[in-house]
């Protein structure tokens, strides 16, 4: 009889992953379908809107079953999913640039209410001036509020990370939202070949959303979000703080399980290292700038210049201890910020400031951290731009003093 039983491994192989030529936005829409999202709210703004288009198409084609609500603005868009999530629905939402900002009131209350919403932020410059291009300040605006923030650099990673985001957000130890940040145009609008996981794999990876005793339901008599005063707020904030204490280990756990089920390896979930093993200095940045950086590094390596790259994925939680341990290995760090933080210490971008802060505690080496502001408003981070930043960082690594903040690729 035993010979008739098909081994579990064999069964898995039969349901093979399909490959499709799709954009990053389409990849996220497919992740929503695979995650069997219950409620989607939409309001158009580029570049996020391609996701809502694809989801509406999946629904129209009968491939996806969900409530699809076109709200009258981003504020309502995020309010509706917040309420749906409290009632036990798995939800998806998203926006870009000033649309994300228009939803800000809803965004601020979402983590405190312990809503495991997954939102896609199609990174876009903040108006004015009206522009479609990528800048990270939109998503970064919620960095202090209890949201988890993750950046990806390929359509495949967007799909996978969307699934990971649901698992992380809906983990009972977490119950906080995840914003999946995708660079406008470079990622949202470029089509590449993506492996689409099977429904069985996703089912195994992502258990149903169970809100437990926090479910707003007549059978579970609770009231959510009453007015409180100073007697309550600090304790509530401490609960969210507890989540951030757990976040790093939960995320690590989820990535390990992702690798087990889907077979794709992301290594360290928090940051990816490229040619860092023997590097003298590294550049560090988030999102699709990784492409020109990797290409430039390969070229510089041919000339014997030992430059590496660290691509930060999760900005919240910020894996400070681990990142610091890694960065202390190098003689200098050049942080490329696709954002600005006017008036910040040393007038650097958001990421450079965080990296310096991460390196400060302890007795370990404190390599100079140079801040570069580059690629704002969707401007191309060119190969010569990257080379220039790498050269400046190499100089700093040799002990030569360099300005702490420089604007690269700017018309003078």
């Amino acid at each position: 009889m035993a010979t008739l039983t098909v081994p579990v491994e064999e069964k898995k192989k039969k349901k093979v992953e399909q490959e499709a030529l799709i954009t990053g936005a389409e990849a996220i829409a497919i992740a929503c379908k695979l995650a069997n999202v219950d409620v989607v709210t939409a309001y158009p703004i580029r570049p996020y809107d391609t996701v809502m288009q694809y989801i509406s198409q999946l629904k129209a084609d009968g491939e996806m079953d969900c409530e699809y609500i076109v709200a009258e603005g981003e504020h309502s868009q995020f309010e509706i999913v917040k309420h749906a999530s409290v009632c036990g629905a798995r939800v998806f939402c998203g926006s870009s640039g000033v649309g994300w900002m228009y939803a800000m009131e809803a965004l601020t209350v979402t983590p405190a209410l312990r809503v495991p919403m997954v939102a896609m932020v199609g990174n876009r410059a903040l108006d004015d001036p009206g522009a479609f291009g990528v800048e990270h300040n939109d998503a970064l605006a919620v960095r202090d509020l209890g949201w988890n923030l993750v950046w990806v650099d390929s359509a495949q990673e967007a799909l996978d990370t969307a699934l990971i985001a649901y698992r992380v957000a809906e983990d009972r130890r977490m119950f906080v939202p995840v914003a999946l940040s995708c660079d406008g145009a470079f990622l949202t609008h470029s089509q590449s070949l993506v492996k689409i996981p099977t429904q069985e794999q996703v089912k195994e990876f992502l258990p149903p959303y169970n809100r437990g005793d926090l479910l707003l339901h007549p059978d579970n008599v609770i009231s959510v979000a009453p007015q409180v005063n100073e007697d309550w707020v600090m304790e509530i904030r401490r609960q969210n703080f507890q989540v951030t204490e757990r976040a790093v280990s939960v995320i690590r756990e989820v990535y390990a399980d992702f690798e087990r089920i889907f077979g794709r390896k992301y290594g360290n979930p928090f940051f990816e290292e490229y040619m860092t093993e023997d590097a003298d200095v590294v550049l560090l940045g988030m999102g699709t700038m990784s492409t020109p950086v990797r290409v430039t590094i390969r070229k510089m390596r041919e000339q014997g210049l030992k430059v590496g790259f660290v691509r930060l994925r999760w900005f919240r939680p910020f894996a400070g201890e681990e990142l610091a341990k890694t960065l202390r290995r190098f003689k200098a760090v050049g942080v490329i910020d696709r954002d600005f933080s006017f008036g910040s210490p040393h007038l650097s971008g958001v990421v450079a400031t965080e990296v310096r802060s991460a390196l400060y505690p302890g007795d370990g080496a404190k390599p100079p951290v140079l801040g570069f502001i580059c690629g704002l408003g969707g401007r191309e981070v060119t190969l010569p731009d990257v080379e220039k930043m790498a050269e400046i960082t190499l100089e700093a690594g040799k002990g030569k003093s360099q300005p702490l903040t420089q604007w690269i690729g700017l018309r003078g």
Partner: protein
Amino acid sequence: MGQLFAVEIIYRGVFQKTLAKGICRGIVLAAHEEGKPGISFGRYGDSPERNGIPAKSFAIVANDEQTLEAGMAQYEPKQVDVAVVLDDTLCKGAESWGWYGLETVNKTIKPNGTMIVVSLQDPDSLLHTIHAKPQPYKLAVLKGIASFSGMWVYKDDHTDVRVLGAIAKALPELVSLQSIEKFIKDKLKNDLKVTSAHVAYERFSTIEVAPGTGNTEEPFHFDLPGWQALRHGVSVDGVTDRGGAYADPVTGQLGGFRPGRNDKFKKYTTRTMRPVVNFETCTKCTLCWLNCPDASFDVTPDGTYDANLEACCGCGICEAVCPVSNCITMVNESAFQDNASQWEAFRKDKAGYTVWLKTVVVPVGERSHGFRYRGQYKEQIPAALEIAKG
């Protein structure tokens, strides 16, 4: 480093977006059959969602992943092996929607690369409008009208696969006809389309365009200022010229009104059609002038209305509101070589203008782009298929 191939599809926003995207998908998926990795993407800033705006889609394919990544490291290809122009009115220029000057249609073609234009014109007549280029390239015409294929309300006319067949002939190193045919069979599941691609492949031929051949006009351009030269507060200089009367080219008499206009914002290549005015039938009713959304009509010294072609985006509202049946007619932009004033030409030579009108406005009321009534496109399909058959 392996070989990198780049193809760009130049098209009109909205109407041809799906068509352009479909062609790029076809290239990438067919090349994938041959084991070559690739990606496709749109030129983001072009705003392909906006009506009639010149836009670009790209397909990049390489022999290996690292070479592909080197190609992807650029915002968009600086040089392409093949450029496909889906609407011959784009031969005048394909600038982005921000109108940062005029971008020539053949700008990115590599030396000895190929430009394929979907058109009913022959290559030589297209070269009257295509700007001259210092390097040689090849030019091919794929016979056809500007296709809306892929828009949900219009029928498929096989332009997508005909272009793919032509690309396989122009650049067999990128993708073979066999791979194109396999892609069509597997993904589009349409045997007739396989035949269309094959026929386009068989009939494809190019002419050599020598350096300097074509329209020698200096393309309109201006330089972007540095941050220190920019006004602060996201503000730009307004148009201080309030406009006023201007001279009749024959009598020299001042009259009429021409508003001041932004000298950095010229809409030359937005148009697929332009209004042609018969000044003799004009009743001076003012409706075109009142209804033009871009205030592009100049009031002439003799009280008629002249569509100023630096300001006109070719929307056709003037034609629609004009109460006279044979006064304003929208005519395919490819019939014209310049943007000069029609009224001045009329004033200088009335008889000549009348003859010119007859040659240009033929047949009256037939639009080359856009449609006058429901079902018009469907009626045109048999004729388009005849053209495709050659």
